[in-house]
């Protein structure tokens, strides 16, 4: 079992009378990529700021790498990299100068700093723009420069707040690749976003925020089972006798629907394609097509909020 690098219990943040974060519990294991999802204003950024000790905690407790960020902020901030929402740089300085300033604040020696800056810029593919003023950078380049800062810090945990919002599709893909590279280095990544398919592409587990609470947490498959009932939808196109019954007999399949004479749609809680193929072959059927729709986070998210909205409306009525 991997050790927990971030653990929060009953974490609460109040601004005056208003509770923005309402007692959330969160556990992050070392090396995993965790996604914080939710609409704007759901408390994601506030939670992140509490993890970094940049805002006070009203109640509850949080440990980051075993330290209390409110009491030992320097230790926490030395080991955690943060890429804020709409990150900014000093426009009149070059990329290298900006990173050098952060490097000095991190307390790196000049040689070490130069070495790390060069490596980090190469990692995010900004070496060509290293000597240019940040004022001329596009949004995608700025985000990458922000990630370079996290890389340069050799952070054990990288907290990325809305890293891809406002990026064009090409830059988004590039940025997600960079996140994956970071993950393969063993860095624990906490990613907040409201762009669901991106989170799904890189995250191991996600937590769904709503009005300051975590309403759902787990891997995408688990969430799908919870919310959609069954996560996977397998489509089988085959000719043969009595296929419907055979397909329904596969373990994990909750229902089979015949959409056309040769087409069956299975709802299952796992990827049952191998079993379906076997079943068709065993029935001497001719298998012509087999496909699976993975559960999309978007479907889960939409369904979840529709459901809760409905119950709320019913409750109100």
């Amino acid at each position, binding site marked *: 079992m991997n050790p927990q690098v971030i653990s929060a219990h009953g974490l609460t943040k109040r601004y005056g009378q208003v509770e923005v974060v309402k007692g959330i519990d969160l556990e992050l294991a070392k090396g995993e990529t965790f996604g914080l999802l939710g609409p704007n204003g759901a408390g994601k*950024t*506030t939670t992140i*700021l509490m993890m*970094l000790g*940049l*805002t006070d905690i009203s109640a509850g407790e949080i440990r980051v790498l075993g330290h209390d960020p409110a*009491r*030992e*902020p*320097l*230790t926490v*901030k*030395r080991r*955690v*990299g*943060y*890429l*804020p*929402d*709409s*990150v*900014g*740089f*000093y*426009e*009149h300085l070059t990329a290298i100068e900006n990173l050098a*300033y*952060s490097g*000095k*604040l*991190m*307390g790196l020696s000049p040689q070490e700093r130069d070495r790390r800056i060069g490596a980090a810029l190469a990692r995010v593919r900004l070496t060509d723009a290293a000597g240019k003023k940040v004022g001329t950078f596009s949004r995608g380049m700025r985000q990458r420069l*922000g990630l370079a*800062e996290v890389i340069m810090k050799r952070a054990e945990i990288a907290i990325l707040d809305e890293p891809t919002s406002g990026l064009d599709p090409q830059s988004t893909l590039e940025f997600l690749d960079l996140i994956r590279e970071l993950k393969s280095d063993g860095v624990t990544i906490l990613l907040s976003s409201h762009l669901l398919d991106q989170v799904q592409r890189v995250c191991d587990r996600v937590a769904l925020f709503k009005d300051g609470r975590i309403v759902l947490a787990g891997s995408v498959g688990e969430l799908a089972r919870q919310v959609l009932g069954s996560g996977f939808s397998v489509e089988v196109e085959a000719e043969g006798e009595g296929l419907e019954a055979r397909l329904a007999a596969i373990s994990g399949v909750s229902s089979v629907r015949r959409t056309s004479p040769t087409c069956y749609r299975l709802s299952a809680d796992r990827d049952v394609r191998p079993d379906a193929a076997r079943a068709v072959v065993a029935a001497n059927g001719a298998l012509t097509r087999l496909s699976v729709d993975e559960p999309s986070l978007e479907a889960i998210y939409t369904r979840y909020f529709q459901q809760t909205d409905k119950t709320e409306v019913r409750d109100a009525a």
Partner: protein
Amino acid sequence: MRREGSPFQGTGTVLVKELADHLSSVRMRVLEWLIVLTAAAALYGAIDTLRQSTAEDPFLLLRIFTVERSPLPSFVTILGFLIPLMAIGLGFDAINGEHNRGTLSRILSQPIYRDALLAGKFLAGLGTIAISLTALWLLVVGLGLLLLGVPPGGEEVLRALAFLCVTILYAGVWLALAMLLSVILRSPASAALVALGLWLLFMVLWPMLGPALAQVIAPPDPQYALLGLPTPETLEWQQRLLRVSPNYLFGEAMLAILSPSTRALGPVFLEQLQGAVMGAPLPVLQSLMLAWPQTVGLIAAVIVLFTAGYVLFQRQEVRA
């Protein structure tokens, strides 16, 4: 419970970066030239006047700072007028500028405390002003030496140095005020406007409002008025009110330091002057003691304003 580590870790880094920014910024260049050109004009007038009156003055160097020839005010008056402008120019966007650029949360996520950022920025601003003022001061003294040809005595140099120190302090008051406003107000433009408003208030309006308010608080006694004398109470109130303005404090301190014959800053009864040799200069130490309360007032203003900014900044939310 104590926080771990030093609150000033990283202050030096912030200081060096901000100092470099200030010294290379266009804004600073403009302010410097504004001060140098106006001061040069005042200086030219002063030196010209001094040359024509070849009276034997033991404090020739100090006269450069204080002599005025209309329509230009003296060098000290001009500094008192323009230094706040320079300090405001350096401080009005210190914190809210970082906020708006989105750099604040990134910088604060580095292993430093907020203390380091605020203190570094304040010291960098003060350092910038100190460098420019020292350069200006050396220029003035050098020009004085060249054009007047009289070497200054030790006492004069001491007084001139005291003048430099108090001037830097005075700039510190305005810098701390500008930075406080940059913490309170999210928009740099409104911070600059409010700071300039206060500057105008203390520069132009307060010298008129102070006496008027004093007359409301302590109405003049008709008995004194009959004798053509000001009422002591009104006078006292007037002085108290005027001394709220850092500008007035600076003016008083300058009067004591640069005009050695100044014996008191405020109303004096005739009997207190008994035995005094009018017009005789005071020793340096006595003059400095005379200016000390004003200087302490300026130091206190710096501390109060900086602390207010510090407290507010510590409690401020960093999210954009």
